[in-house]
């Protein structure tokens, strides 16, 4: 070591008035010279040092964002919403899987010439999203559900963020599949609105009971109704083209209204 940091350079470095090259040179020297390090270190303002260390630890502790959280953050999503979505990966994948299965069934059923098979598909298809809704928002999908039911953030907000996280990719998947299921005309997508109505209905009913029980009850009603009404295949297809859609739209509106009106009830954990 042939030189030491002179007093003038040290003062300018501490005051952050030394040029970048000079600063780099001083820092390189400080790494290997204990005497200068002690002298310069003692002169550094403790508040500045504290701020620098906070910045370092903050950078080290910055959560390692997954691709989804990272993307959502870049799209302007808040920390809270992005983290809520990424924390429930299990729920999102179960939802997408169920919708994927429904769409695969839609493609095969719409290309089938058997009317009975197609009618059965229209009844069965909404059960996938309904089951996925129960799975996505039931207690099993979020291990921290009990803990999160006691935080000040609204449970309804968490529920809606998770709903959006599940439904938006499902809608995208459905849109992509449309060219393959269009052979049946718009009847091939006649299961979508009932799916939405059943899923939202289960969410609304979960303000009274568990979402699993709500989904089971709605599923039984949905499957049982055509049997109780003794609808034949042509009647069933006709019903799907009109009354079922109108009723589903009405059910969606009622479910949304109930969810909003009973929003505080979502804040109790289930017994």
């Amino acid at each position, binding site marked *: 070591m042939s030189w030491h940091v002179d007093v003038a350079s040290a003062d300018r470095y501490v005051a952050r008035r030394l040029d970048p090259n000079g600063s780099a040179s001083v820092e390189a020297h400080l790494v290997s010279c204990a005497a200068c390090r002690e002298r310069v270190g003692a002169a550094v303002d403790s508040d500045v040092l504290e701020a620098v260390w906070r910045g370092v*630890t*903050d950078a080290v*502790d910055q959560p390692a964002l997954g691709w989804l959280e990272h993307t959502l953050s870049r799209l302007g999503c808040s920390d809270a919403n992005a983290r809520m979505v990424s924390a429930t990966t299990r729920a999102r994948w179960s939802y997408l899987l169920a919708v994927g299965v429904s769409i695969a069934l839609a493609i095969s059923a719409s290309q089938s010439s058997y009317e009975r098979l197609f009618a059965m598909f229209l009844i069965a298809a909404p059960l996938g999203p309904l089951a996925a809704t129960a799975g996505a928002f039931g207690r099993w999908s979020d*291990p921290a559900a009990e803990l999160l039911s006691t935080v000040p953030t609204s449970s309804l907000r968490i529920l809606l963020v998770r709903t959006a996280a599940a439904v938006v990719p499902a809608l995208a998947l459905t849109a992509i599949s449309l060219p393959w299921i269009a052979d049946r005309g718009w009847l091939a997508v006649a299961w979508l609105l009932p799916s939405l109505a059943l899923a939202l209905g289960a969410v609304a009913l979960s303000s009274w009971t568990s979402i699993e029980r709500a989904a089971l009850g709605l599923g039984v009603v949905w499957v049982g109704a055509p049997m109780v009404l003794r609808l034949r295949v042509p009647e069933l297809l006709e019903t799907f083209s009109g009354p079922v859609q109108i009723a589903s739209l009405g059910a969606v509106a009622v479910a949304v209204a109930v969810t909003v009106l009973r929003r505080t009830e979502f804040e109790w954990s289930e017994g």
Partner: protein
Amino acid sequence: MDPIVSTRGLAKDYGRSPALRSIDLELGPGITGFLGPNGAGKTTLLRILATALEPSAGSVRILGHDPTDPRARIEIRRRLGYVPQELGLYATFSAFDFVDYVAILKEHVDRRARHDEVRRVLDEVDLGDVRSKAIRKLSGGMRRRVALAQALLGDPPLLVLDEPTVGLDPEQRVRFRQLVSRHAERRCVVLSTHVTEDVEALCDRVVVLHDGAVVFDATPAELAALAAGRVWVADLADDGAHVSWRTGEGRYRMVGEPPPDADLIAPTVQDGYLLLGGGIAEGSAA
């Protein structure tokens, strides 16, 4: 001074099964331990105090608020720390990420201040060095401490801890006691446990629940005193004892009604609790 928690005639039913029956309690600063057999109602009571569960009847006031009022419930939740029986941690998150997530949901909005707070609570539970490690790689005791760390966010005046020492080794248990007792100086800590040693070492007050009702409510010393003159040791087990077991020294330690010439020893909280349980079983206590 107003109590931090007070209940009047608090009851909770699951369908037709009563889980809690007319509980009257007032809790202030200090540590209150709830003891009782499985199914006694400890977890149900703690979940109500943590605002996770709605009471079926009676009144509850927590931190001056009624938790059945939605706005008041949020106020309580802002000043509450809760460790549930089932920890429910995200295995893929690091300890820092998980506590940070809970901090976000607890309305710690400013990122830098929030990260400082997360570091503070993790340091407090001695997890500062492993904060970047995935939770799945942490030991059971460390996971318990992660759960405790999130409960300490914001330095809440009420801590509700459901079976907090399950799975901790003796050393971790002592560290837990140190940590909780430090926090209890100005705050109300409510915990449920099966470990009578924890109650003896930690609690100012012990409440014994049985079949959804309070059957004892006093200090741990008073619970131990229930067994004064009713704990003895002998070379052979006495059929008249409520409970007896062979100790490591090869003698039998017994709790119950001693014979006249019994070698009496000092009772513990466990002895008092066992005697109370025996009395309940025979319908002679409470």
